[in-house]
């Protein structure tokens, strides 16, 4: 295929693997890049050393272009962004922060930078920073988003931006790819669909649930991790949203995170407090969410774990290999376009 995104990134298909914590691991990233898409490594749960090691692991598994993400919400993640630059990762995907310095540094070695955005205001800012493209996340997407849906958000951004738009939220098959291209997007990013593949490290229990659950089996609420976030509707998810923020749990969970990321706890604790109450509250929320997502993705715990998913889970019926999936999507997109060509020629 040929779009601005395939040209820019030197990939065969304009299909990206979203950077999902505990899912977009080196093996998964390499599987997507080897199959002709672009894998994006999730660095959210990783320390700087682990991030460096993960990038090198990806390079051992594929010689194709790949990306890595960096959430700029908190300090440790900015450290990870610096590692991505030092390692000259081909595509850097950032979200939730000011990324102009990443663009400057990445462009020095020929790297590309894409920002994940949820509205035109963020998208314009990303364009002003010099980003090469944006990933536009519609309401139907897994995890963080706003009210506006992909169908409306994508054409609105396409009309108002000069840089290419990659559509995310609601895409899982060939019809979706054809629809995204018709809306003016230059590619799609998928998370939920890639979770349910052979190579995905998502626990089997949740792969099975992703196939079983329907389009309306999600919850969209700001009472899971403090931001508007879409998660799979399970008993555990409903409990978590009902309870809201549990500060005591946040205390213990943040200790786990500190241990996992190799940061002394007192340093993290005072760092968080110094960031002000609203940020501290946000981070406390996220500490708990972190734990619940980890329980779901790694342990497959359906009683306490919570998994961010998109509405598109209702369009998933099987667990193919990544390569099968990509070939099928492109094949079906062509089939869809042939069907439409017939409609329009009559």
């Amino acid at each position, binding site marked *: *295929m*040929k*779009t601005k995104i395939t040209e820019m990134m030197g990939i065969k298909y*304009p299909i990206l693997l979203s950077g999902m914590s505990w899912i977009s691991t080196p093996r998964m990233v390499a599987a997507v890049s080897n199959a002709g898409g672009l894998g994006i490594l999730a660095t959210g749960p990783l320390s700087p050393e682990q991030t460096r090691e993960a990038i090198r692991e990806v390079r051992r598994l594929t010689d194709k272009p790949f990306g890595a993400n960096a959430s700029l919400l908190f300090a440790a993640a900015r450290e990870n962004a610096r590692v991505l630059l030092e390692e000259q990762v081909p595509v850097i995907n950032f979200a939730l922060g000011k990324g102009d310095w990443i663009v400057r540094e990445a462009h020095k070695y020929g790297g590309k930078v894409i920002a994940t955005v949820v*509205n*035109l205001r963020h998208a314009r800012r990303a364009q002003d920073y010099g980003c090469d493209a944006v990933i536009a996340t*519609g*309401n*139907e997407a897994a995890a963080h988003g*706003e*009210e*506006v*849906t*992909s*169908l*409306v*958000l994508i*054409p*609105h951004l*396409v009309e108002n931006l000069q840089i290419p738009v990659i559509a995310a*939220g*609601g*895409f899982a*098959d060939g*019809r*979706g*790819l*054809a*629809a*995204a*291209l*018709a*809306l*003016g997007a*230059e590619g799609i990013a998928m998370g939920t669909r890639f979770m349910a593949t052979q190579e995905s490290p998502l626990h089997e229990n949740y792969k099975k649930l992703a196939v079983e659950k*329907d*389009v*309306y089996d999600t919850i*969209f609420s700001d009472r899971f991790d403090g931001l508007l976030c879409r998660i799979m509707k399970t008993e555990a998810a409903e409990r978590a949203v009902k309870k809201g923020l549990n500060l005591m749990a946040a205390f213990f969970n943040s200790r786990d995170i500190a241990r996992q990321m190799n940061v002394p706890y007192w340093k993290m604790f005072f760092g968080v407090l110094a960031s002000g109450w609203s940020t501290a509250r946000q981070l406390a929320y996220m500490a708990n969410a972190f734990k619940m997502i980890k329980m779901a993705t790694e342990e497959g715990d359906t009683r306490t774990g919570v998994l961010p998913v*998109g*509405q*598109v889970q*209702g*369009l998933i019926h099987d667990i193919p290999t990544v390569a099968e999936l990509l070939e099928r999507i*492109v094949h079906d*997109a*062509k089939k*869809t*376009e*042939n069907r*439409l*060509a017939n*409609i*329009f*020629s009559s």
Partner: protein
Amino acid sequence: MFGIKYPIICGGMMWLCKPKLCAAISNAGGMGNLTAGNYETEEAFRAAIQETRRLTDKPFMVNITLLPSVRITQEHHRMYVRVCAEEQVAGIEFSGTPLDKALGMEAIELLKKSGVKLFHKVGAVRHALHAEKIGYDGIYAAGIEEGGHPLNDDVTTMVLTAKMAATLKIPVVAVGGIADGRTMAAALALGAQGIMMASRFIATKECEVHDRIKEELVKRQEYETVLYGKSIGLQGRGLRTKVLEEILAIEARGGGFEELIPLMSGLRVKEAWEKGDVDYAPLMVGQSIGLINDIPSCKELIETMATEARQYLAQAYRATGGTEI
């Protein structure tokens, strides 16, 4: 099914879908809508059908909303169905309660015998399957972005259209978030056989509404609509205005039906449309208002959409490496 030129259908809108707009859309090659709820007597409703027929010889839809209301009763619903059968209108867009439960299977038989095509606007596959089972001819699949009363399943058009098209045997018309050639092309790609728009048709020359309302829709953006009415079990999407802020505030402090109804009544909406006062009553429009940038005639709108849809599909075609359209 209807022998129309473009699969672009107007959705029912109280006080707005009257003969002039309806005929303009049908004459332009789409399918206009006459909303039955505008008319309280049989004479007025029949007269509106006949006036539309004077203005166009093309088919058009009638909207009948099967929801309990203060002004429009079940007797009205029966009358609408009977008149539609007698007048042999092309099709009916129902919404709310399915026809078998609202008026019984005999209503369905009567309409089918008269050759009226039946569609129901639904927000969930389970409701669509029920409609298919009892003999409806098609489904309007309404995503959460639509103005009006989207189902509180909150599924978006992108996902819902694909799911419906893959599940149902009867044709699916996509509703919610569609206002231009791009969004129409996308809906068709997802498997819809047609698209329905409402908000977009408000901002046309032929719509009989105050100019200030049309200008407001051009100005406002996709993030400026809001869902309300959840607390009283009737979710609606409308333009974010002073009155909707007030309604949301009443809902937030647990105010009930009695406090809300005066602000939401149909007659108040009628007055707001006529006076051009956006802050007076909830104006039920969808997220697609972010894609409205002008006030064309219905003919200009429909032809531009068809041309653009073809152009964007050709672009998509080039991207996937297929042959040219």
